[in-house]
């Protein structure tokens, strides 16, 4: 069976050109679909299960990196995870991260010689893992390091101003047990009750000490000290409970490594 690919690139001319170059470099490859935004990339990848996924980084909807992270969470366990190739015009931080990692990346304008090298790498990876199943630890490791925020120079957060009705409630960071992204808001969970803030989790994360607050899911950050226990269900998915909160929090497989028993 021939290998299959999905291309996610928002600029129509570039998507067309990438497809043409890709087919030239890899005549047997079947390009299943070309999509123009991050959300469609996730939906189509889950529906079509391509072997290779070419993701532009800056896209409408969600970025290529976010799309990859969501895919890693949603991808079924019994299916091989696609080989990821990121495409970027200029993304200093990402390029730097890629260079230390084996996930391949392409710089725009994409050049045929470089694309052939990518094709060889992907072919080698696919040949090697055809018999195996399950997402590769290496891919997760790479994604994790790509998702990690660059260190911020912003002063770290001490108190969170949250609007409650007509007034602003000042919540000390030391009282926060977890942050959970919910639609347009972030829920700030406390031992008793919760408050809502509008600052996206992405902007909040660089201001939090990563040793104190652990990311456990795309949309969840918990205070490490407040974690009570972590359990695995029949499907192998992890979830955790905090000491002072009743609800369970799903742990993404991107961050499952943290909970291997010492």
């Amino acid at each position, binding site marked *: 069976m021939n290998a299959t690919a999905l291309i996610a690139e928002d*600029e129509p001319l570039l998507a067309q050109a990438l497809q043409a170059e890709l087919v030239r470099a890899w005549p047997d490859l079947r390009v299943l679909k070309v999509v123009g935004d991050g959300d469609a990339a996730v939906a189509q990848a889950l529906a079509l299960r391509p072997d290779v996924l070419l993701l532009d980084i800056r896209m409408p909807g969600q970025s290529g990196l976010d799309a990859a992270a969501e895919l890693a969470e949603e991808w079924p366990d019994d299916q091989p995870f696609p080989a990821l190739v990121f495409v970027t015009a200029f993304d200093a931080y990402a390029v730097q991260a890629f260079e230390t990692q084996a996930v391949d990346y392409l710089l725009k304008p994409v050049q045929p010689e470089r694309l052939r090298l990518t094709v060889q790498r992907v072919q080698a990876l696919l040949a090697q893992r055809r018999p195996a199943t399950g997402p590769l630890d290496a891919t997760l490791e790479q994604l994790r390091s790509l998702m990690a925020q660059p260190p911020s120079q912003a002063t770290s957060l001490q108190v969170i101003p949250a609007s409650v009705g007509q007034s602003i409630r000042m919540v000390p960071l030391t009282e926060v047990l977890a942050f959970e992204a919910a639609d347009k808001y972030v829920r700030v969970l406390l031992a008793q009750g919760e408050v809502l803030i509008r600052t996206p989790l992405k902007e909040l994360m660089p201001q939090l000490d990563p040793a104190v607050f652990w990311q456990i899911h795309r949309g969840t950050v918990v205070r490490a000290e407040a974690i009570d226990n972590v359990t695995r269900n029949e499907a192998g998915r992890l979830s955790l409970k905090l000491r002072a909160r009743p609800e369970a929090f799903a742990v993404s497989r991107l961050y499952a490594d943290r909970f291997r028993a010492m």
Partner: protein
Amino acid sequence: MPPFNPVTIARRALAAVVFNTVLALAITAVSGETLAVNMVYSQFIGLLIWGLIDGGRFVLHPSGWPGARAMAGLVIGAVLVAYPLGSAIANALLGRPLLIGLNHFPRATLGFVLMSLSAGGFGAYYFTSRELLARARLAGKEAQRQATEARLKLLESQLEPHMLFNTLANLRALIGTDPERAVAMLDRLNDFLRATLKASRADATAGQHTLADEFARLRDYLELMAVRMGPRLRYTLELPEALSRQRVPPLLLQPLVENCIRHGLEPSVGGGEIRVSARQGAGGLELEVSDTGVGCEAEPAAGFGLSQVRERLATAYPGQARLHWHSAPAAGTRALLTLPLPTP
């Protein structure tokens, strides 16, 4: 220069001690007292004068420079307080009556007070003028650094690498499939780059160009973006003929249009529309840049081009230009500039 740097304070104290010693030597040469006795008087009085002046100027003004008149008053006050106090302390140490000088040698005392006054005045003048000079130099350097940084930021934002490399990638694709369109795109890029470099070199007041030029450069930029974004970008430029010769700082509107693309349309799956228009309003020339993109809640922090436009307006039309900016989620963004320009 931090006002309470212990090293510079110690340096000034040391200079006072040396100065007091020289005075004691000089007085010994012309008076009957021993050097040791003169040293006691000289150091106590001199250091008190120095302490009162050097401390007092920071009490009067946080910067340490309360102005020339206040400084003169401070010197006189310090001497009038420190001379009797210092000599009384020295008298006590030497076992003499506290007011012996004033009571028995009033003429000599007056002479010493006047001498202290000139010494204190000289010292204060010397050190503060040096400090003021250093501060002025530092401020000059800082202003220069800020100007350079502003120019660099302008250039950097207009030659944004993401925009540049994506444009080149599109060009590369077009060369194979549609050479004619590729040539047109290359010409646009050429004009855009030339205008950007020119704008980054010219200073904000001298290097003005006409509104017609401004709108032509915006069209270059938007056409480049239209090739990249396809049907996701729609735009209209409205410049009444009567206003086309009006002069404005080059690429003044460009950061605003770029914001519309980058923060309004690019994140939106369906894209949107950008409108740039000029009109003669009641308060002057009105330039409006708006989009129908995703919008945002509050004015974004620095680095979004808005502060840059504000700075340029402040330089080109000090206190006379306004920038009104409004945005709301899902309601797009609207920026309105009002410039104090005469009717052509």
